[in-house]
């Protein structure tokens, strides 16, 4: 398997005798193991998220982490009486990560084995290895992007908005409007290349062609005068979400063809795909195009993009090969498309 797909996206820490020496509930005055804050920080900078799965009393444990000054590193900490597999499942749901993206570090071989049997995709490490984690390949990103270093705060913004959504009493539309979603659509520059390549292999959901493109390929596209490469940068009242969408349009030979359309899994449901597609449709129409084509390959995971194209009246133009690939087409004669009402869009080409 391609090594770049084996990275740990979230490291889940046990507490007693793993993150700290001693057992909190037994009255020990627990102390962090040596180098723990540096290790948390180093992994955090690389875009690895941290969480906690611990059998403990939430107030006690979380307060203690706060006293150590490291509580902020941990997203969706699971502290309580559920078993480890349940806690890990809760973390994977909360962060929208697959089990194979998670790893557990725990001093107890019983717990590690339970996790290995019940949620086998989750990697496990004995706590004795905690100092070695930073040098293991699965904890090294292929590239450190500025986005990677702020991944935790992007998740925190996103978790805040999820909580706001749960607290909101009203229609989905009025909730979306209240979020003050702002999408900036602009031409990709050379220093967007790494982030675009990262987005491509991180997205498994709204990726229209479900293919992987590396940075070299992306760089070629950005430099290609026959192609339009646009990024969508999103912010809302909860914070900045960074670059969350990409679209690549091949302009020659005509008709224009959307080769790539993808949105980060975490930014689904905000209208980013709609915003990017609306822009491309209207832009093509402005330039005198009468049809717009789009490449699309149906997978179990990209239903959202299938529905996106359908909602914009793209229909089958031709089938390509035998891997469920299609080219869709949209008739541009039906007039301009408006942006979703809840989305403020700024564009610059």
């Amino acid at each position, binding site marked *: 398997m391609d090594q770049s797909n084996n990275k740990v996206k979230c490291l889940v820490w046990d507490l007693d005798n793993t993150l700290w020496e001693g057992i909190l509930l037994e009255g020990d005055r627990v102390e962090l193991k040596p180098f723990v804050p540096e290790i948390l920080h180093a992994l955090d900078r690389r875009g690895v998220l941290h969480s906690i799965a611990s059998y403990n009393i939430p107030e006690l444990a979380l307060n203690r982490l706060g006293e150590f000054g490291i509580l902020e590193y941990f997203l969706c900490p699971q502290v309580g009486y559920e078993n480890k597999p349940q806690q890990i499942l809760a973390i994977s749901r909360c962060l929208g990560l697959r089990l194979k993206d998670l790893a557990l570090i725990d001093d107890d071989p019983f717990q590690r084995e339970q996790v290995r049997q019940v949620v086998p995709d989750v990697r496990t490490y004995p706590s004795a290895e905690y100092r070695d984690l930073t040098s293991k390949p699965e904890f090294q990103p292929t590239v450190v992007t500025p986005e990677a270093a702020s991944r935790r705060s992007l998740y925190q913004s996103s978790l805040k908005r999820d909580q706001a959504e749960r607290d909101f009493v009203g229609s989905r539309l009025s909730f979306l409007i209240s979020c003050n979603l702002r999408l900036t659509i602009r031409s990709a520059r050379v220093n967007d290349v790494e982030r675009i390549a990262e987005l491509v292999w991180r997205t498994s959901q709204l990726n229209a062609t479900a293919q992987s493109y590396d940075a070299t390929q992306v760089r070629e596209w950005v430099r290609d005068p026959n192609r339009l490469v646009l990024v969508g940068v999103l912010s809302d009242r909860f914070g900045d979400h960074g670059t969350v969408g990409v679209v690549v349009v091949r302009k020659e030979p005509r008709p224009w063809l959307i080769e790539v359309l993808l949105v980060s899994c975490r930014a*689904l449901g905000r209208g980013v795909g*709609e915003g990017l597609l609306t822009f491309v449709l209207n832009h093509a129409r402005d330039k005198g195009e009468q049809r717009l084509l789009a490449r699309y390959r149906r997978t179990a995971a990209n239903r959202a993009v299938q529905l996106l194209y359908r909602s914009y009246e793209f229909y089958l133009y031709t089938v390509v090969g035998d891997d469920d690939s299609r080219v869709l087409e949209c008739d541009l004669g039906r007039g301009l498309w408006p942006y979703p009402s809840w989305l403020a869009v700024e564009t610059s080409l």
Partner: protein
Amino acid sequence: MSQSEVEERLQMMLAEIMGVEPATVDRSAPLFRGGLELDSLSAVQFLAEIEKEYGIDVAEKDLSLACMESLARLAAFVAKHTGGS
């Protein structure tokens, strides 16, 4: 399973996803542009709910999703494909 029963049920399901009163969801309006303006993620959720309730994967059975013109048309499709015994 009559079409109007399915229509009423789909109307309630969609109203819940949209967070509005069922009566305000126009059954004959376009689901997308020029009508209910459903976004892609809500549409995915809607089809998933339909599959859970009726056991039919609409996107598998209608690859072009032509039946997603309106709630009424979608209900007709669902009613037709969950045949009575």
